[in-house]
């Protein structure tokens, strides 16, 4: 149509922006890693000491107990806190989170990796589904807000928003596994299938994921529909919508103007909640027996597994930092006002 008359911030400016974000993100990760390192080590209870004392109580001699503990964990903590900190940071630079204490001999990264697969996909699916559903219904609730349908939709949002996720989860479990048993009660997959890229295994995965995903979707749907409804109502009152109608724009165009402007603020929240998903959802994982990140974190705290705790916190931090960066870049791409604010 029209040639770009002025230069928009392109290439170099965007690269500079991304680099700035990554730099700040790394600093943030370092700060969180440091703080959690020290806090974790100040928690009362020392697992190695605990094991040593248990062995003593079983009648071992102190020498024997110390050797047995060393064999069990593969090492004995000896260095000072500062020494440990430097070691920890050094391994962190090599993406090494150390070894788990509660499951000796297993790397923290592999524990987190295997837990993540049971968290990321279901929670991601639930987040995206609830977002799509909530946003669509929010638009309808806003447009039909003076009618019965609008009232009903808004009511569904308020109700579901108020019900805690574990109540929804238990209700769904009771309904679909006991009253009307069509779905599996728990576990992420049927053990009869060989893990791999085959129809049976994947089908079983999906089949088992229905309830957790539905629970997650219903639990977050209320927030989305309420937020979207109030955004749409606000934009409906904006003059440019009436102006577009008075210029005789087709309904489709007016609707797109409305939806795009209303959905904008929700993208930040969406990006952040996707970042948060690395914290897992302890209730859902507990109810549906998913060995995900939430359970991993809780177990690591109760067993004082320093390395695993630190790793789990770090993963959450990285998730949120990355989500923030993505949200900011996304905003730059979709809101021209942010774009030009940066050139000024």
């Amino acid at each position: 149509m029209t040639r770009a008359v002025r230069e928009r911030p392109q290439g170099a400016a965007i690269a500079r922006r991304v680099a700035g974000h990554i730099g700040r993100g790394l600093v943030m990760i370092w700060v969180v890693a440091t703080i959690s390192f020290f806090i974790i080590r100040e928690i009362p209870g020392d697992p190695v000491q605990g094991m040593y004392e248990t062995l003593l109580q079983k009648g071992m001699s102190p020498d024997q107990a110390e050797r047995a503990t060393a064999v069990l964990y593969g090492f004995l903590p000896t260095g000072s806190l500062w020494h440990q900190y430097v070691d920890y940071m050094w391994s962190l630079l090599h993406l090494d989170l150390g070894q788990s204490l509660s499951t000796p001999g297993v790397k923290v990264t592999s524990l987190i990796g295997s837990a993540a697969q049971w968290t990321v996909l279901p929670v991601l699916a639930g987040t995206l589904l609830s977002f799509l559903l909530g946003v669509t219904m929010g638009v309808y609730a806003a447009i039909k807000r003076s009618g019965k349908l609008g009232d009903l939709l808004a009511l569904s949002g308020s109700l579901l928003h108020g019900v805690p996720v574990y109540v929804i989860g238990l209700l769904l479990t009771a309904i679909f596994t006991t009253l009307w048993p069509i779905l599996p009660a728990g576990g992420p997959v049927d053990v009869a299938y060989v893990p791999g890229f085959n129809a049976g295994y994947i089908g079983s995965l999906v089949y088992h994921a229905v309830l957790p995903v539905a629970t997650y979707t219903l639990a977050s749907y209320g927030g989305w529909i309420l937020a979207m409804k109030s955004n749409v109502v606000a934009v409906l009152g904006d003059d440019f919508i009436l102006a577009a109608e008075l210029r005789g724009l087709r309904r489709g165009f007016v609707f797109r103007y409305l939806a795009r402007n209303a959905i904008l603020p929700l993208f930040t929240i969406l990006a952040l909640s996707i970042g948060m998903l690395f914290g897992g959802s302890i209730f859902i994982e507990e109810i549906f027996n998913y060995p995900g990140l939430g359970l991993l974190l809780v177990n690591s705290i109760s067993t004082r597994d320093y390395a695993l705790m630190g790793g789990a916190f770090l993963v959450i931090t990285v998730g949120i930092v990355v989500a923030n960066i993505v949200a900011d870049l996304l905003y730059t791409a979709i809101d021209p006002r942010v774009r030009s604010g940066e050139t000024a």
Partner: protein
Amino acid sequence: MSRDSAAAPGVRIRGLTVVYKTPAGELPAVSGVDLTLAPGTITGVVGESGSGKSTLALSLLNAVQPPGRISAGSVEIDGLGDVLALGGEELRRARGRKVGYVFQAAQNSLNPLKTIGKQLLDLGRSHDVDDLRELVRDAKGLLARMGLDGARVLDSHQHELSGGMRQRVGIMLALVLNAQVVVLDEPTTALDMITQATILRIIREVHEERALTTLVITHDVGAVAEVADSLAVMYGGRVVEHGPIAEVLGGPRHPYTQGLIRAIPRLSGDISLARALPGRPPTLGTLPVAGCVFRERCDRRMEICDTVEPEPVTHDGRTVSCHATGRPSPAVKRREYA
């Protein structure tokens, strides 16, 4: 630019009544308004806030927003028929294509997320414009006509434009589809004096070049005096006086018009000569049900005013709705407008 040189359409508003739903029932914001816009003229409508002038303007596009509702009357536009009888697609096509509407400058009448050019294309596609390139050329021509760099403006977002520029973009969007009737709602409100003068000059010039029939809504008597051919004064949802602008401002007959003009401070001379109209403008709820709506603030109130609503009486091309206008009125001639 080639324009079909069809004569400007006339607009006849008859018995227009618009009611708003309130907790106290449906109350009229505009009641029984008759107003004729002569083809090719600029008609100014002045009135205080709440006098029903914006509602009147929206009625020309059959676009009164809920809780408002047009309950009676007709708006006949030559070549279009009764706008109030239109609906659905017919009405949508008439908007923009036949009747252009320009919003108040300070209000944001543009989508903040799209460039002006993209919104122009949306407009063209909505009205099945075959040659979008020509539409863009026309738009650039209009913008250039108003002293803007068309290419640059079309490539801008709303927030990159000043209030005066946005207002010119609004005028461009109202005219680019060759609408022959143009409604401007408070076109200069919230603009600085210099920009106001520029916009008013542009309105006048474009109006003459394109043979339009134009309605300018404003509360600024000074602004409308610059551009309009005739002036309608609204009070409490009625047109209380209507006539050629020089005559209405030079020799106002309705007591409200007289009060309005007395209230304007003069640039030269004693500021204390300006007198505010006593009392407050009526709201929907305080509007008297029977009799003259202005009687509470009127200095020539008579017994009949309490019970009988004055009928509009046309004399010498001037229409006045007042029981007292038969009597000689105290002269409030203002030399600026005479």
